[in-house]
Each structure stands twice: as C-alpha cells, then as structure tokens.
C-alpha cells in the first residue's frame, strides 16, 4: 500500500490545482498580515472600542500570537474549500478521466487502493494546515513579535500569558487537523457519487456552508440540531485559549476551561472521519466500476 500511497501523493502534487491552494493560503495570510501591519492599530481600536471606555490596556496586543488567532478564525471557515478541491476529486477525477478501471487492474485489493487515496488526501490536508501554521504563527511571530495573547470573547476577555500560549497553539492546530480531516473525508466520500469533480466539490462546500450557517444562527429551532452538526464541533479549537480561574478569580496557568468540550468535539469529529472513510471503503469494494 506504501507504493500506492506514493503514487497517489505523486498524482496530487503533479497537479497545479494543488499548489493553487498553497498560493491561495499564502495570499490570504499575506493580505491579513499586511493589513494588520499597516492598519492594525485602527483594527484593535475598533474591536476594543467598548472595552477601552472603561479600561486602559497597556502592552503589545497586536503580536504574532494575536495575528495567528485572527488568521485561524478567518481561515478555518474558508480552508475547507481548498481541501474539497483535492479530496472531492480523488475518485470522481479518476472516474472522469476513465483511469479508475485501469487502476483496479493492478494486483492490489480495492481496500488498499482506496485507503491509499484517502491517506493521500489526508496528507495533503495536513500539509496545508502545516503551511497555515508556518505562515500564520511563525511568520506572524517574526513580523509582529510576541507578547501575551489578548482575546476578546463575546462575554469576557482572556489574557493568556506568553509562556502559556505555545502548547495551546499546538493543541489548537492538532484539533484543527481533525476538523479539516473531517472535511477531507466528507469530500472523499462524496467523490464516489459522481463521475466529474465539480459535483462532489460543490456538494462538499454546500454541506459545509449550510451546516456552518445553521451552527452560527442563534435561533432556538436550530439550537436543537446544532450538537449533531460536525461544523459546530469544528470551532472547538478555541477552547484551548480559555483557562480556568479559582474562586478568587486567579488564572490557573496551564489549565483549560472546558477540556470535556474538546474531548467531546474531538470524538465527534473522529467518528465522522471513521464513518466517512469506512463508508468510502465499503462503497468502493462493492462499487460497479464502469468508468
């Protein structure tokens, strides 16, 4: 299967479309960084307008950690499109080109072939996320420097000590990897149902967009279904940046406010990944390949 994985990775990285995603990520992050470098002060003043009426904040708010937090907030909504471009093309692309039948003439089980394809899509997804981490976190740290992380939530403010941040980003990126792998596995699963790439890519994005809208609308009827939508769990990475306080309101450095939320959401996402990947393998083993 290792050989098949190499072949699939070779196919992915031979296509210009793959690098388009990396270029798009670079451009998006670059634009955000440039904007905040030029007008970051105005941005922070706008966000903190209400807070600044009562408090004066001293320190370097616009630092690399803060920029990365903004980037993650914005990008993790849009990156699924770039992942769908590849993952939703894995089977349907070959079906479209008519190479799927030729592929299956190789002396390998269908399970090994489809698993190699899934793993290749997963590796692409992880590489994209690593690229986001490199540009979003490390380049931002180099450009903007580091300091405590100042996060404004809708009901309260959190200041994470500089020495307490990095492991939280490691956790957040690992969680984001699960979220993006869920998108990847959904796209991969949908790619079985079409013989051209456009359909599964659009279908994957449609699912993400509809679910995200349902997750974000604070309407009672939607609140009932929210826990069952995987998009509701994709944003749980933010929980890494909230810590516990004791009765005297003293921050407990190194703690997480709701670790159970992270575990629950991670389990939901893992179940989705296993579900979509398992269903894809089952479907592929029984699929009547005509193209």
């Amino acid at each position: 299967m290792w050989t098949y994985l190499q072949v699939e990775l070779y196919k992915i990285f031979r296509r210009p479309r793959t690098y388009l995603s990396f270029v798009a990520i670079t451009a998006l992050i670059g634009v955000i960084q440039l904007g905040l470098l030029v007008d970051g002060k105005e941005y922070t003043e706008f966000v903190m307008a209400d807070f600044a009426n009562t408090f004066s904040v001293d320190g370097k708010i616009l630092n690399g950690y803060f920029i990365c937090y903004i980037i993650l907030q914005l990008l993790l909504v849009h990156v699924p499109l770039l992942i769908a471009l590849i993952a939703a093309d894995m089977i349907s692309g070959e079906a479209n080109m008519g190479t799927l039948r030729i592929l299956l003439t190789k002396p390998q089980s269908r399970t090994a072939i489809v698993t190699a394809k899934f793993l290749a899509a997963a590796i692409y997804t992880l590489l994209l996320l690593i690229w986001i981490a490199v540009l979003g976190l490390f380049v931002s740290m180099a450009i903007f420097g580091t300091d405590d992380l100042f996060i404004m939530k809708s009901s309260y403010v959190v200041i994470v000590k500089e020495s307490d941040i990095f492991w939280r980003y490691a956790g957040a990126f690992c969680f984001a990897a699960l979220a993006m792998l869920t998108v990847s596995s959904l796209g991969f699963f949908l790619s079985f149902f079409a013989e051209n790439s456009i359909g599964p890519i659009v279908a994957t994005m449609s699912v993400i967009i509809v679910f995200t809208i349902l997750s974000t609308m604070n309407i009672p009827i939607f609140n009932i279904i929210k826990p069952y939508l995987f998009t509701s769990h994709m944003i749980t990475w933010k929980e890494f940046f909230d810590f516990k306080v004791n009765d005297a309101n003293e921050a407990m450095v190194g703690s997480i406010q709701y670790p159970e939320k992270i575990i629950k959401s991670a389990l939901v996402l893992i179940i989705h990944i296993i579900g979509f990947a398992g269903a894809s393998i089952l479907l592929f083993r029984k699929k009547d390949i005509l193209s």
Partner: protein
Amino acid sequence: MHLFNTRKIVVALCFFLSSLPFAKAQEMNSLVAKVKAKLDLVNDYTAEGKMKTDVAFIKAPIGRVKVFYKRPNKFKLQRDGGISILPKGGISINIGSMIMSDGFLAIDAGETVVANTKTRIVKLLPNADNSEIILSTLYIDEANLLIMKSVTTTRASGTYEMELSYGQFAKYGLPDKVLFSFNAKDYKLPKGITLEFEDTDQATKNRLKGKKGRVEITYTAYSINKGIADAVFN
C-alpha cells in the same frame, strides 16, 4: 451688672461654639498637611510587585509589574513584558493621587476602624467648581500619619476605593499592598466581531454578574529617592 456679665458669657460662648468647626477644619487641614509632608519625603520611587486583576469579565494571570513615581504627579505602572489592564479614569493607583495638592477643604467626619487600626475620617472637598475629583474621603491613621483607605468620587469615572496596608516602608508612607476597587460596567461584544457563535453557558453568565472590579498590587521591593529620568514616563 450681673445681667451684663451673663450676656458677655453667652456672647463669648456663641463665638467659641461658632468657631469650633473652623478650628476643626484647621485641624483636619493640618492633619492632611502632615500626611502630605510625610509623603513628600519621597521625591521618586521605583517599585516591583505583583498585580492581580479581579474583574468578573476579565481572565488575566497574576503578572509582575514595575511602578515608577516622581513628584508631584508622574506615575507609570508597567507590566513586566506582558499586557496589563487597568481601570480608566484620571486616577493612577498611587498614594500621591489620593491627596489633592491644594485648593481643598478638609472636613472631619468622625472616626472608624480600618484593618484593626483606629482612623480619622477626613473628607476633602475641592474649592474649584470644575475639579475632576468631586469628593475624596481619607481614612487616616493619626498616630502614624498613614492613609489606610480612600474613597474618591470623580466627575467622569465614578467612584474608586483604595485600601492600603503597610510594612517596612511605612516610614515613607508607602504601602506594601494596595487594593483598588471600582465599579466595572457590563461588557458585551457582538458575536459578529468575536466570530464566536456558541452561547455563553449559564455558569459563566452567573459568574459575570454584577461584581465590583478589583486590582490588587503587592509590592515586593521599593527603590526610593534614587532619581528617575522623565523619559521613563513618556
């Protein structure tokens, strides 16, 4: 003759009684002046300490702070390599800001006990109509000429309360610990800005309800009258 003497005594008594408040005011002015004179022994100081911000809707770690003061009114508090949040309003967390430098009326408001110390309550009223401070109440330990507590009402920023405890730097009137209390307004930011879509849970909502904000600074070291450049306060 007898009637004439009685009248004289009554008039003298009236004069004496009517002059009592002024005598008291003089006494209070003198007490405040003595406290101020003690504080004036310090031309400048640098202090290191730990700051704890206790505001219901702010989660902040305890941080190391460095404080700079230079007479008459230069004060700067900076966090050692981090972000600090302080309540806004003209008053800095320093003892010098509690006493109006001039143009005030001191009124005796009785005695009370603050932190097991008998204190004199002195209310300071500014003479100027447009003063930022409307009223300042000081709780002064008369024996040691130390301000144990102050409650300051400002025109723009509400009422602030400072409680002070003293240790080895009491002879300079400098506290080891300052507890600064203020009324914190409610905080709410639109979810569209924070990009947060989950509702805050009930336990957190309860925790955030109507609590006074407090900033506690515990000083660990003072460096007094060593000279500080004005550039430090820029």
